[in-house]
């Protein structure tokens, strides 16, 4: 472990900073057949901030997200979550961080087929030793937030694709998660349901969480405070929205 070294080698953490990537690079494979999925990414997400990531297929979005969530180790660079350098943490500590702090929505949902919707959602809480009652309430709250309270006892195979996706989202927001990383969380949803999910994510973020939203859909990216474009593993543009001008005539302006 190289706590001092790592801590001394990077910028200090700002108080409201939830996540920071410093020069993160990722190469899959070695030598001739090596693929550069990420080529030096610097990115921060603060409390109350939702960042959208857009980019063509294969540009590195999912790779970036799994690295940010501590699911994959980068080839080089640092990931810092709430001031903790992941490279300093033993894997047991990273696992705790993942089930307490992080909510991850996988592009392919990753539900456990032998568990009900509710059990899937509350799994991280149970692993964390939450009391039964509290776990149950939190699970139902999260399912209600995605409009699936009535489907709590169903198994994944008895749910439609869009419903499975919403269970995956419920799992990512259950309990006290502060950093939500969502990979195409609306891919299987119709436009009105997708908008409901975005509104819910936005509310969580406005209440003090932080999040990254990977999406191909500009309408969904528009819910973010910042839109980052990836091309060939590099950030090529960032769209920061400061204060909105009113585009609309008439009574309703903000």
């Amino acid at each position, binding site marked *: 472990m190289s706590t001092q070294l790592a801590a001394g080698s990077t910028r200090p953490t700002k108080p409201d900073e939830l996540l920071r990537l410093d020069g993160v690079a990722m190469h899959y494979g070695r030598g001739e057949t090596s693929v550069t999925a990420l080529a030096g990414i610097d990115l921060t997400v603060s409390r109350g901030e939702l960042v959208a990531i857009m980019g063509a297929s294969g540009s590195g979005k999912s790779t970036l997200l799994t690295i940010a969530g501590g699911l994959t180790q980068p080839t080089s660079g640092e990931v810092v979550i709430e001031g903790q350098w992941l490279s300093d943490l033993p894997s047991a500590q990273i696992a705790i961080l993942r089930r307490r702090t992080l909510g991850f929505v996988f592009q392919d949902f990753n539900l456990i087929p032998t568990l009900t919707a509710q059990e899937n959602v509350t799994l991280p809480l149970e692993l964390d030793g939450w009391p039964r009652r509290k776990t149950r309430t939190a699970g139902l709250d999260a399912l209600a937030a995605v409009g699936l309270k009535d489907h709590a006892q169903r198994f994944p195979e008895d749910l439609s694709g869009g419903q499975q996706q919403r269970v995956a989202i419920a799992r990512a927001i259950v309990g006290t998660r502060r950093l939500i990383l969502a990979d195409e969380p609306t891919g299987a949803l119709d436009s009105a349901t997708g908008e409901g999910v975005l509104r819910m994510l936005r509310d969580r973020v406005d209440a003090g969480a932080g999040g990254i939203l990977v999406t191909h859909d500009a309408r969904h990216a528009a819910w973010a405070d910042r839109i980052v474009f990836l091309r060939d593993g590099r950030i090529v543009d960032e769209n920061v929205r400061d204060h909105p001008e009113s585009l609309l005539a008439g009574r*309703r302006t903000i």
Partner: protein
Amino acid sequence: MSVRQSLLAILDQGPCYGYQLRTEFDRRTGSIWPLNVGQIYNTLDRLERDGLVAKGDTDEQGHVYYQITDAGHDEVTSWLSSPVVRSAAARDELAIKLAIAVTLPGVDISAVIQVQRRGSLRTLQDLTKTKNASGEPESAGDLAWQLVVDSLIFAAEAEVRWLDHSEARLARASAAGLMAPMQLTLEPPKRGRPVRAAVDNDAQVAGSL
């Protein structure tokens, strides 16, 4: 033409005077396209000329009420039961800009696209924020406003999608060496065909399959 038909549809609910029509149009479209009184009276004049409305009573305050005719009522019915057809050849500022930019030497087309995408996304973000701040609709007027905002949001999204698509297409074309800028020429165009003909042609092809 939608202003003309909208005013007619409102008059189909009962006689109105000019300023009242303006208010009715505004509250039914979320006040997003405010009309001035001049436009209202111009439209009413034309509707009267075409026999779709007639001047009726004047009240104590001097408001002249306009009343719909049978022909006007038929016009409303036909408006509501037929699709709005957007002309395929309607000028689109952005499509023209991009098409021209592609033919010019020394223009970085991906920069042009990126600048536009930033602008379109900004619009989309502002619209979304505005809509989000307003919450659930609480009246028919709110609902009208949200419908219109949604339509602007979807239009902005379509623009971004088209830019993404164009960027990918241009990258392929560039890789295939097709991106040579056009020189000035005196020859008449060979390859252009009017959009209308193209559509008819495609329909024929589709029909013969």
